[in-house]
């Protein structure tokens, strides 16, 4: 392993568990060789995984920093690197990882004591899960927790067991699930997240953490504004093509901001000031 300190040089870890979450999402557990985590992170930060021969891609770290044993990455199969991760990687495979990169959700200051509303769509739960489990492990530091999560179908919920059994049993924690279309065996809500939000009639005194496909983010934000929320209350996390992870390779900028370094977490009023190029 390398101790050179250059940020572009990864460390070697090992995949110790692979959980098939949905038809196209798997969660990979990564530990240092010999156990423990490769590095510490904060909720919302990202790491770059290598598939030697194919290259690197950046992913949000889905496990909470409070987890002392390992890091987890929930990864949707949608490109060349994620294809390899899904099809070629088995438990015991060693993998190169570098990070952590980017800023994080303000769990240590601005979110303390706040009632928090999480809104996620599809694989957008991956970065949220890190924050949710962090807050649940430090439950008394935060107010009420509401989690609104939408997926295409029941089979597309990531961590269904955690959603339906673990989280709802925590103090003042409520999970609201919705799927896009009616489905046999589903008696929960049906419909898209933005409308579901309005039906749930949240009061605009909550701080919102929002992540999902760009179109969902835009529509949810519009719904929240209609409900009386302001853009400064809404945090989201962005994703763009990245190579270096440290604001030098010139790839992930939106205007003067580099998503890898200045983000990925932004408030929606910050995003308003950026060119519409994401």
């Amino acid at each position, binding site marked *: *392993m*390398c101790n*050179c*300190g*250059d*940020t*572009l*040089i*990864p460390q*070697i870890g090992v995949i110790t568990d692979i959980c098939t979450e949905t038809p196209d999402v798997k969660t990979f557990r990564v530990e240092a060789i010999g156990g423990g985590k490769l590095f510490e992170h904060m909720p919302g930060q990202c790491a770059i995984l*290598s598939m*030697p*021969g*194919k*290259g*690197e891609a950046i992913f949000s770290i889905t496990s909470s920093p409070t987890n002392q044993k390992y890091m987890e990455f929930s990864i949707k199969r*949608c*490109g*060349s690197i*994620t294809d390899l991760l899904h099809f070629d990687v*088995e438990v*015991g*495979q*060693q*993998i*190169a990882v570098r990070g952590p990169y980017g800023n994080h959700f303000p769990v240590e200051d601005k979110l303390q004591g706040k009632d928090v509303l999480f809104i996620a769509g599809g694989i957008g739960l991956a970065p949220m899960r890190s924050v949710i489990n962090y807050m649940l492990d430090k439950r008394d530091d935060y107010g009420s927790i509401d989690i609104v999560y939408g997926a295409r179908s029941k089979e597309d919920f990531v961590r269904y067991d955690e959603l339906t059994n673990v989280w709802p049993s925590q103090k003042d924690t409520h999970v609201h699930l919705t799927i896009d279309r009616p489905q046999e065996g589903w008696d929960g809500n049906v419909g898209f997240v933005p409308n579901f939000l309005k039906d749930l009639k949240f009061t605009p005194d909550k701080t919102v953490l929002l992540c999902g*496909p760009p179109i969902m983010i835009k529509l949810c934000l519009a719904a929240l504004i209609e409900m009386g929320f302001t853009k400064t209350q809404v945090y989201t996390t962005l*994703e*763009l*093509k990245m*190579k*270096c992870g*440290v*604001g*030098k*390779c*010139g*790839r*992930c*900028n*939106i*205007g*003067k901001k580099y998503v890898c370094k200045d983000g990925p977490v932004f408030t929606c009023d910050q995003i308003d*000031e950026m*060119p519409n*190029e*994401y």
Partner: protein
Amino acid sequence: MLKLALAKLPELCALMQKEAELLVPAKNKAGKVDYKAYAEGVEICLNEKTSRSAKDAFFPQVENLLKFKSEGKNLSLEQILPPDHATILFGVKACDARSFKLLDKVFLSNPVDSYYKARRENCLIIGLGCAEPEETCFCATFGIDATNPEADINTWVVGEELYWAPVSEKGKALTEKLSAIFVEADDKAVKEQGEATKNILSMLPLANFKIADKISAKELVTFNSKVWGDLSATCLSCCTCTYVCPTCHCYDIRDYKTDDNTTERFRCWDSCMASDFTKMAHGNPRKTKLERFRQRYMHKLVYFPENNGEYACVGCGRCLEKCPANLNIVKVAKALEVSDDV
């Protein structure tokens, strides 16, 4: 001030070569001038601007970062360390010398790029005062003194002589080692040449070119200007401007399998003008040529100044010379200046 006869240049280079790897401007196979490692017989070309900038010395077009070895499920990696030997970069014009300070803001800001840093720290820069500025030159726009590059040692070719003035401690130390080859000189000839160069500069087409303050004043206003459509229409997306630009620093990181079990990872220059630069599995935020063209100039004229307080341009004029579609930063800045929506 010191000097030596130009005829003694090979002798000087041979002496410098004993101290460090020496990079000099010389004719390449295509007959163009570019930097190359000095060896006996290399014909040094001090009177032309190099066709590529001098950034290769610190940010090479391609460099290997590491090697992966896989064996079954096991993976090991070996970092390919940046070179740690001393280099001397000879004949750097003032525009290129300034570009290093701009690249420093990118590569030496936290987290420091150790590859760039190693090359930069191990290098001694010998500047060369401009005597024949070209019609495409506009370094004065950025407050650069063409006759006095920001370097460790400065040199000037006047007639059949090379004048030599150490500036930094590093430059003085090298000069000390080489002292036997020089004779003392006064600076009269260099001063006269400097006046003549400034006189030429004042008569060149871009002598009074300035970048209007309003361009960088409001990011979104400049971004949304209608000028980008017309400006970008004839761009061929060939990326030449990027590769010859001394301040362009975008790079890619790629893997190359040398055999079934071995992968080399390298970094290479990339360009924001390339169509796949920002392409992801789920889409591309800069789909059109207009968006990519705009990105490059917004970076130089707006984003870089916002982040670093300076334009990402040194007025070397290479994009004016090399663009096959006659597009360049001057044309863009002028179009934005006269546009009524900026």
